[in-house]
């Protein structure tokens, strides 16, 4: 199966009086890894659930491979949403894997077997008896081995220790390179996962803040590093996202582009310019208005 394209058109979801998603619209091109970022309660899980046909939108449309996914047998067969803890068969680990293998036409049994070894999952243990981290690892195994044309990971790393998380990121990237498909990964651990993203979507309070390529986002800000006095003089009046100081050296993250003249002046002052970190940008964009002012 070829990777699916994902398109959201003015998507809104309400829970009674609460607006979980409000007119969200963006596109994820087939065969890309998209990071879905947002604070707690921003609407990430609702968005992924709607895309995966777990629920209907209140308004607007979700199009997966050009069709609405809800109760669409062809499209649903190509979507795999892995939520925290995984929606797996309440049985032994090997039974849960066999079940996924029987249903998923794109299942890779050898990859699943290798990942089970790598994450040290006890095959004969009951899924209920697994720790939170191991359950998350089982969800990760099913998500990767399913090789679904649209794979959605909703904070799948929760409970995993650092080596397991990095193993997951490595496996995801390696398998994606070998078998490109569309992957959406929601996460709070931005520093850990930003290297994976080709496309980034940031939502806050149910509204879309940013949907852009990682490359373009990296150019939407700049870090200025150098002697503290020179840095402060350079950034005076600019939109500062973050300031760090170590001894007489300061590093300031600015939001916005620098023109050629500003770059020349920074060079004259002996300052080093670098790309903005996604986490800094995320914190700035999602900060409450009183803090951002």
């Amino acid at each position: 199966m070829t990777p699916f394209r994902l398109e959201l058109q003015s998507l809104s979801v309400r829970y009674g009086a609460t607006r979980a998603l409000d007119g969200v619209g963006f596109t994820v091109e087939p065969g890309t890894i998209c990071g879905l970022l947002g604070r707690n309660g921003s609407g990430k899980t609702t968005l992924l659930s709607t895309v995966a046909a777990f629920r209907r939108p209140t308004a607007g449309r979700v199009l997966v491979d050009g069709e609405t996914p809800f109760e669409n047998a062809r499209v649903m067969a190509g979507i795999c949403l892995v939520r925290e803890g995984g929606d797996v068969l309440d049985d032994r680990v090997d039974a849960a894997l066999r079940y996924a293998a029987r249903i998923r036409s794109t299942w890779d049994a050898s990859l699943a077997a290798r990942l089970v070894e790598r994450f040290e999952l006890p095959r004969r243990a009951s899924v209920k008896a697994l720790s939170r981290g191991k359950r998350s690892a089982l969800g990760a195994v099913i998500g990767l081995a399913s090789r679904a044309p649209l794979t959605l990971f909703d904070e799948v790393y929760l409970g995993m220790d650092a080596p397991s998380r990095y193993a997951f990121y490595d496996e995801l990237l390696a398998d994606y390179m070998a078998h490109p498909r569309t992957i959406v990964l929601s996460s709070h651990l931005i520093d850990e996962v930003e290297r994976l993203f080709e496309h980034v979507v940031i939502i806050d309070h149910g509204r879309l803040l940013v949907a852009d390529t990682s490359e373009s986002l990296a150019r939407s800000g700049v870090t200025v590093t150098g002697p503290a006095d020179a840095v402060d003089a350079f950034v005076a009046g600019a939109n500062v996202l973050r300031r760090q100081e170590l001894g007489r050296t300061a590093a300031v993250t600015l939001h916005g582009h620098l023109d050629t003249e500003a770059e020349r002046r920074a060079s004259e002052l002996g300052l080093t310019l670098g790309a903005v970190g996604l986490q800094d940008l995320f914190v700035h964009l999602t900060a409450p208005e009183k803090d951002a002012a």
Partner: protein
Amino acid sequence: MTSSRSTHPRPTPQRVAVAVLMTSLGRVLVWFVPIVLAVPIVLYALIAALGGELDGSGVMMGVANNAPAWFLFAMGASLTTQYLPVNVAHGMTRRSLATALSWTFLAAAALLALVLPIGFVIEAWVFEAYGWTREAGIGLASPLGGLGALIVDAFLRFAAMASIGALAAITYYRCGAWWGSLAALATVGAPGAIVIYLSGDLGAWVAPSVTMAVLAATIAVVNLSLHALVRGATIRSKEAQ
């Protein structure tokens, strides 16, 4: 890395779902059937040991009428809510699960209806062994007719109860505790009353053909309602499950 593929054609997801549901049910049935058959035998042994005597099939009849029906009611409810999120998460439609549930209920009801006469045969041996006599028209000689009628009647009642359990569960799943309880008047109360009425003494006033037609209609209505509710269900968050 290559995908591991079988040379046999893949079963449809719906068949896989039926197989998994039947396996899940079968694991419990393996324990349930021997227990249900053993309970009356143990009771008869106790009565005989205390010097008592029975002239009817009340115990086996009571167990045979009620235990499989309520067992399938509970399993219908459990399977529906357990497998709905799992199946959708594995890329299957809700309607394929609803169809798989209906087939599973029919198969399980048929299996238990076929086991039912074995209980009466065992009971007949026990009565003979203790020198007790049985009333005519009880057990294998069902009031509805012969053995065939007994099996068909049991099959319809068991299938109805499994479907009612599933309907009650999906209503609670979709509507929550308050509205689910209120709706239970329609989802459990009305069809359950029909099944219980027809399987009790009052049902003896109804012609056997009418009993079977009403039970078949109840199964059809309950399963259509089940399909309608499952097809539109929102898969709840993990925390809410």
